[in-house]
């Protein structure tokens, strides 16, 4: 983790520590949620014939700030010590397959006390507002909507304007494109936005836009996402069209689509999902077709078991089909 972002979160937790240690604990603990969050994930990548593990242990906090006339805003801070064990390919946050580091997930403040016409203002490290991920949070879960693969990063440092109004909600952000680093790297940036119908409804539709340059790759995206729930069944999808520019002035078309059918038990302990993912690049002869089947079982409020299996159904040019099985246990205390 690089200094600026680390200092940002360190300050948050030192401040938290200082006020908790001080006699005014009762005031700060007001409207504070916090949880110790630990997980262990076992992955078996059949294509690479490799078994790996990821361990994460961290603090997840949420605090609502108020004054006499109401809420001013809220803050979210998530710092996780994360350890890899034989994990390949090595994720960008790490330097080797057995590396460990402190990782900032979400760390932001959202100012909500402005007049009705003024959007809320979010500042910090947050999930880019795009597609299904804007409505369904997947942080720390096996469930994934592949935001990172599609946009170049799932989270980024920056500013967003967001609001829920009577029939719609929107969230537009400008971020630095440094991913975990609180700076722009070689001209990196990301402009991301989504407007959609209200998130709690049985039928939700959203339109997302993205224009960014991350890791030296320029990307443009236009996406539609939708969800429909009937009883304990849900069907949802996302279609993103766009183009990538990995080298100057050579734009290549990209198409990504996801279709998911899910089912929950009536007490919500068991959740099952199956996804069909299609990814097409102009430079590739074939469309990548993957199936992902997963489940999660919530034993108690604290303890959850998740499993998922991904299998590529088309034959790629390399001849090696993606095939990945994962199991995760997660405990929140």
């Amino acid at each position, binding site marked *: 983790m690089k200094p600026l972002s680390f200092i940002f979160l360190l300050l948050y937790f030192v401040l938290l*520590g200082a006020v908790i240690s001080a006699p005014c*604990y009762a005031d700060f603990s007001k409207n*504070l949620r*916090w949880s110790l969050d630990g997980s262990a994930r076992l992955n078996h990548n059949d294509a690479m014939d490799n078994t790996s593990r990821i361990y994460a242990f961290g603090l997840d906090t949420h605090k609502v700030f108020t004054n006499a*006339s109401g809420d001013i805003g809220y803050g*979210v801070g998530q710092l996780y010590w994360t350890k890899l064990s034989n994990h390949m390919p090595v994720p960008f946050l790490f330097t080797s397959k057995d590396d460990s580091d402190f990782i900032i997930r979400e760390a932001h403040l959202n100012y909500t006390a402005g007049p009705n016409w003024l959007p809320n203002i979010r500042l910090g490290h947050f999930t880019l507002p795009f597609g299904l991920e804007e409505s369904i949070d997947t942080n720390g879960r096996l469930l994934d909507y592949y935001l990172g693969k599609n946009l170049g990063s799932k989270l980024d440092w920056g500013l967003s304007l967001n609001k*829920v109004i009577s029939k719609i909600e929107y969230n537009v952000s400008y971020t630095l494109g440094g991913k975990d680093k609180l700076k722009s790297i070689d001209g990196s940036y990301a402009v991301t936005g989504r407007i959609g119908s209200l998130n709690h409804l049985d039928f939700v539709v959203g339109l997302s836009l993205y224009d960014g340059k991350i890791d030296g790759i320029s990307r443009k995206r236009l996406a539609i996402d939708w969800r429909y729930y009937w*009883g304990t069944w849900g069907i949802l999808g996302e279609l993103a069209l766009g183009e990538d520019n990995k080298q100057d002035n050579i734009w290549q078309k990209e198409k990504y689509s996801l279709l998911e059918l899910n089912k929950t038990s009536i007490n919500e302990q068991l959740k099952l999902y199956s996804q069909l993912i299609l990814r097409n690049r102009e430079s590739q002869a074939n469309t990548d077709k993957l199936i992902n089947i997963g489940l999660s079982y919530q034993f108690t*409020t604290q303890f959850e078991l998740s499993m998922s299996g991904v299998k590529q159904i088309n034959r790629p040019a390399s001849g090696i089909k993606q095939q990945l099985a994962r199991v995760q246990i997660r405990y929140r205390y």
Partner: protein
Amino acid sequence: MKIICFLLIRALLMLLLYIDNVEAVAYCSLRDPVAQIEQLFPQKTNQLSIVKTVGEDTRALVKIALPSNDLHFNELGRHTLYIAMLGKEPLGYVHVRSEQSDWGLVEIVWAIDKDLRITNFVFQRCRSPKKKIAQSSSFKDMFIGKNYQELKELLSYDGITAKQSVLENAQEAPELANVVLRCALKTLLLTEMLWGEELVKL
């Protein structure tokens, strides 16, 4: 650096002393029912959140007050009561509660007045095919204006279903009437039990 480590360790130890029930989901996924509060209190200028813990002790008290009833595991943890504000004046309270049904969890956003009577409600989530019936004013009127004791009188002897008169008024949605009644009772009970002291001071 030593001071920072000391403060972090001390903070962690203090947090462990004040351990609470937690939510199963990461806190970045929390969403306030902004649109529903607006719908229930259109004149409000802001909302004031008060977060309290629904723990196992609270769950036990609910079982005593409402025999045969229980709280869903998602109902444990830190929960928010919203005060709808007009400037610095409280207009009423908003409390979201879930109740298990045959169509998964039904999440209801309740509007409550300062005397802890139901003034209105909207569904945050209800996947019953008969949801429209439960949104009609004739259905809602069975609950609106009532306090905890008056709602409890609508319960039949089994403690989990509504009396026959309520079920008849519920037209073709008697199951939803049972769910809404149980949810209303638990909402008012928890509001008074956990937030009562602070609400008196407002």
